[in-house]
């Protein structure tokens, strides 16, 4: 059975993207007498290049075979557990982006910083909490003041 290596996953994902974008490029206004090359030519050249290079990576990875494992194979749950910090941080950032317009800069950013610092530093000691709250409650208002009053940029 074929293993889904990083190269194969990359190539397949890109080939899918290329296919979707190629179809979408059909919606671009066609060439006219005063725009003989049209707006679709440049992206289509790039899509062909991207597709060919992805195909090359796929073929090469099929010929060379899957690289030898240096670590034992992990189940999906184990793999999620191994990378939980990174994935959680991505999740927290996504949540932050979603909550920013709802809660406003000060509340949303404070929540994001306190939570993500708690995630990375830990919450099992008083010292960690002091660092967490000191960093969050100093930086968030400071950035607000710099942008709002120093640079005249409105924050949500």
């Amino acid at each position: 059975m074929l293993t889904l290596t990083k190269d194969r996953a990359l190539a397949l994902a890109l080939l899918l993207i290329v296919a979707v974008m190629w179809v979408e490029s059909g919606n671009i206004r066609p060439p006219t007498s005063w725009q003989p090359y049209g707006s679709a030519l440049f992206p289509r050249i790039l899509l062909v290049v991207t597709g060919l290079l992805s195909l090359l990576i796929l073929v090469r990875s099929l010929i060379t075979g899957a690289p030898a494992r240096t670590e034992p194979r992990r189940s999906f749950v184990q793999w999620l557990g191994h990378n939980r910090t990174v994935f959680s941080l991505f999740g927290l950032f996504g949540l932050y982006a979603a909550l920013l317009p709802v809660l406003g800069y000060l509340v949303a950013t404070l929540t994001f910083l306190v939570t993500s610092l708690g995630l990375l530093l830990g919450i099992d000691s008083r010292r960690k909490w002091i660092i967490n709250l000191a960093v969050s409650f100093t930086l968030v208002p400071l950035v607000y003041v710099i942008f709002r009053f120093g640079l005249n940029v409105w924050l949500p």
Partner: protein
Amino acid sequence: MADFFLQALGQVSSPSVLALIVIGVLFGIIGGSIPGFTVTMAILVVFPFTFAMDPVSGVSLMVGVFVGGYSGGIVSGVMLGIPGTPSSITTVYDGYPMAQNGEPGRALGIGVAASFLGTLISVAVLVFFGPLIASFSMNFRPWEITALIVFALTLVAGLSSGALIKGLLAAALGLLITTVGYDRNSNLRFDFGLPALGSGFEILPVMIGIFAFSQLMGNLEKLRDEQGKIKGVDTSVTIPYGRILKDMGSQKLNTLRSSLIGSLVGALPGTGGTVANFISYDQAKKFSKHPETFGKGTPSGIVASEASNSAVAGGAFVPTLALGIPGDLPMAIMMGVLILHGITPGPLMFEQNPVLVGAIYASLLIGAVIMVLCQLLLVRWFAKISLIPQEVLVPVVLMLCAIGSYALNNNLFDIWVLFVFGVIGYLLWKAGVPLTPLILGVVLGNNLERQLFRALELDESWMTFLTRPLSALFLALAVASVIFSLYQDRKIQHNQLRARNLPEQ
């Protein structure tokens, strides 16, 4: 030349701009001294603060970060034995042993002095060659510029450490990203029915997302794998000024050679401080009468390393300002700053914005002086700051990236762009795709398309790209760089295979 330089010097010497350069240098040194933070990240974090500034102030702040950042690696390199930035790896080879031998102040002092001289020499190179190359490139027509951009992209892709195909793929993806939204003919492309995509992606959130997320998450993964062990450090440092003057007196040739190597390498696309660092260290060792002392704490090693990586600053500005082609990531971001302020880097910049060009020269010079003062006076504080744990840095930088992206247009959609490209950048990085060609593709994409179609509108034959000598030369160089990289890739694979087979024989 003298007139615009004096005018620029007058503007840069105003208290507010000087204060910005000081802030930039301080932030750059701090960024460069924190292992895993890098000069590029420092520049990215400061970039949004320039939005509301006039071009001279914004560029001066960024140049300050640039100068400080390239010298900041000395601190953690000497005190912790960990290079603060990849461009100060060889500083560790001799700086750390010297510090371990009880002379951290001497190591830091030599490094700072070499860094200062390297920056000065590179500014001289920039002042001399920048206008020359710009005036030569005034003859470039759309065919030459198209071919030059293709050459720069293939060169950068080819230098992606044994991953040519992925490097080329990254460059193509970067170019593809710039095709979203309205094009030069006001035709809509790849909006997928979403009105927000109509105006395309802003360069800044795309760049920050791709670079910052992958690097920050990479730092976290490294921390997890290393179980987060941080060394303690003795920050009580005294600088022996007399000894350093004597040391530097015996390093004149080494300083000049290393600075010139740094300037030259900095001017080549896709190379940057790390390459300059290794070449210069290697050359210093080869020219030395005592090569056996290298790696054991010799001043020659520190001088070679620090003079070369700081000299990259001036050299890297040459292609960016003169040709509008950034050679590396920090320069791509610097170009983004200029574009944001309505200035298009390229040969015309020397004619249309001479004062701004002069301001860059002046900021580099003033930044170098401020860098020496800051480093010598505040070194023990920088050593302490370099111990800030990644667990604190990562969320703070992510927050600053989000606010920076928003502040660009007061648009929350840009934070989503940052996030989505952050995920894409992280996944590509995990798949071993080099991200520098991708970012260069994003920066150069619009210009490439514009120049390509301008060329075809002037002459519909594609063969003109091959019949014009300079255009043909650049394209031939692009092909040669791909072939050379393929050869290098094969050689690396062959060596790896041989190394794998050796134990079995």
